[in-house]
């Protein structure tokens, strides 16, 4: 396979990967970030993503799967466009993370690891995200929202829904 002609990744990501594998003493060091960046673009680690990443690094697909299953941010099926990750670890729990999580469940009508029927949101309870002093905190994809109360949940979700709406209007 020639990655230039058959890549499932955008040209920008493909050239980023070309640079990435050359950064380290061994190509394989690029594996973990590559999987994450690929997931950011494609949405999840599909068969095709795993095959191309294996090809680019020069290891087997089994090697890729073996590593990918270790890391909790990597997933093998699609999430929502906006993946809401609520930290419920101790510092957040003490400041009401479970009430926050419950409110997200109620607003989105989905449970832990669920995806809304329109595919816009998914919800996940996650371990410590390193925002303990600004608890309770969540991440929506990579964006942090901190010092939250359940009452702020509808506005947060509305903000992201608006982004989707605007994108559709522009398309």
């Amino acid at each position, binding site marked *: 396979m020639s990655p230039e002609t058959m890549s499932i990744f955008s040209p920008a990501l493909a050239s980023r990967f070309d640079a990435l594998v050359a*950064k*380290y*003493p*061994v190509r*394989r*060091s*690029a*594996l*973990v*970030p590559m*999987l*994450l960046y690929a997931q950011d673009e494609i949405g999840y680690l599909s068969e095709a993503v795993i095959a191309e990443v294996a090809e680019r*690094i020069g290891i087997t697909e089994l090697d890729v799967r*073996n*590593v990918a299953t*270790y*890391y*909790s*941010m*990597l997933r093998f099926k699609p999430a929502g466009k906006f993946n809401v990750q609520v930290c*419920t*670890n*101790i*510092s957040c*729990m*003490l*400041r009401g993370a*479970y009430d926050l999580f419950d409110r997200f469940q109620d607003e989105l009508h989905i449970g*832990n690891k669920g995806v809304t029927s329109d595919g816009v949101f998914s919800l996940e*309870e*996650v*371990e*410590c*995200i*390193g*925002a*303990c*002093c*600004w*608890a309770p905190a969540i*991440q929506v994809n*990579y*964006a*942090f929202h*901190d*010092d939250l109360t359940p009452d702020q949940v509808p506005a947060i979700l509305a903000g992201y829904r608006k982004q989707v709406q605007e994108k559709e209007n522009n398309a």
Partner: protein
Amino acid sequence: MPRLVSHPDEVKIVSARFGKGAADIDKYLELGGYEATKKCLANGPDWIINEMKASNLRGRGGAGFPTGMKWSFVPKQSTKPKYVLVNGDESEPGTCKDHLIFLHDPHAVIEGTIIAGLAIGSKVGFIYLRGEYRYLLEIMEKAVADAYAKGFLGKNIFGSDTEFQIVTQSGAGAYEVGEESALMESLEGKRGIPRIKPPFPAVVGLYGGPTVINNAETIATVPHVIDMGGEAFAAVGTPRNGGTRLFCLSGHIERPGVYELPMGYNLKKMIYEVGGGIRGGRKLKAVVPGGSSTPVLLPEEIETLGMDFDQVGKAGSMLGSGGVVVIDDQTCIVEFALRTISFYAHESCGWCIPCREGTDWLKKSLTRFHAGFGTAKDIDNIQYLADNMMGRTFCPLGDAAAMPTLGFVKKFRKEFEDHLGGKPCPFAKHVEVAVV
């Protein structure tokens, strides 16, 4: 955006540039940045290591190993390339100090990495950030690119004959990768499973070469040690515990935040004066002094306790990563223990049996216990399990799960007993807590 806090008792060394726009390289230079690196280039490795030894700086990741001594263990001659590896996998629950360092002072991390490289004779440094810190990785990447553009990194740093390259790396969600050997595995593109020691990383580390691995806060402290001089830095703290550290006050506290205080600062004062006391005027029930893996302390144990590695160690806990989690009297300790253990059970890599099985059984026992189906024997069983995990795992994750559990059971045995006989928990709202 994380809120910055301030208190008159703070001694701002590492956090001196927070909130001053120092992520911009020109601003950083204006604030005295990169002078330490130039000084180190002029004075050479032996001088750097002596300054570091004199500073009594100890590793901020949790173990508290003296940094200067760690650097001195790297052999001077090596057939394989040597490496510096900065551990920014910050994942210990209760800890968010590196978050602020990457956000506000990325060049201090770069400077510290270069200086570590000069000290051990390495030409390459890796800065590894946890995957969740994407926006911070982007800040770090920009800072590294700016440093290359100025000639502070590259083949001839600061116009000298010395080469130093920095590569940034993203993780993808794994607490255990914060353990140094697992971190190297992850950077080599593998599952983050710990390696057997010895050999220690200083001898056989990343890609088989001698490697120094330091926590991001330790590394960000290095340029300040050089600027102030090792002895002056040491004088700020207590004997054998040099300088200040970033304490992360979280939980049921009036003014949570990251505060930079001298080593040895009294914990009670930290909670009641710096942090403004317990939220809502409630009473203190317990405090986790150094991240979720450190055994809990009772109010009577913190009266005269100075927060340095030796004093907290003597009190039966650990200073750990500096994550001070405050727990008020309306909290169920069994639930708190369960949430703590659920985390370790989730993060255990499964490589060694005492940790894989131990964390899972602790979680199962505590879940059942918290749901009101525990028996008196379960309390002893939890203790027995935790006792048998201690020191019997490849990496400290097993200990990190066992230590706090033992603390909860020993110090709050009565509260565990109060859950017996199907009695409802007087506090908890989330019996089904263990979803993760």
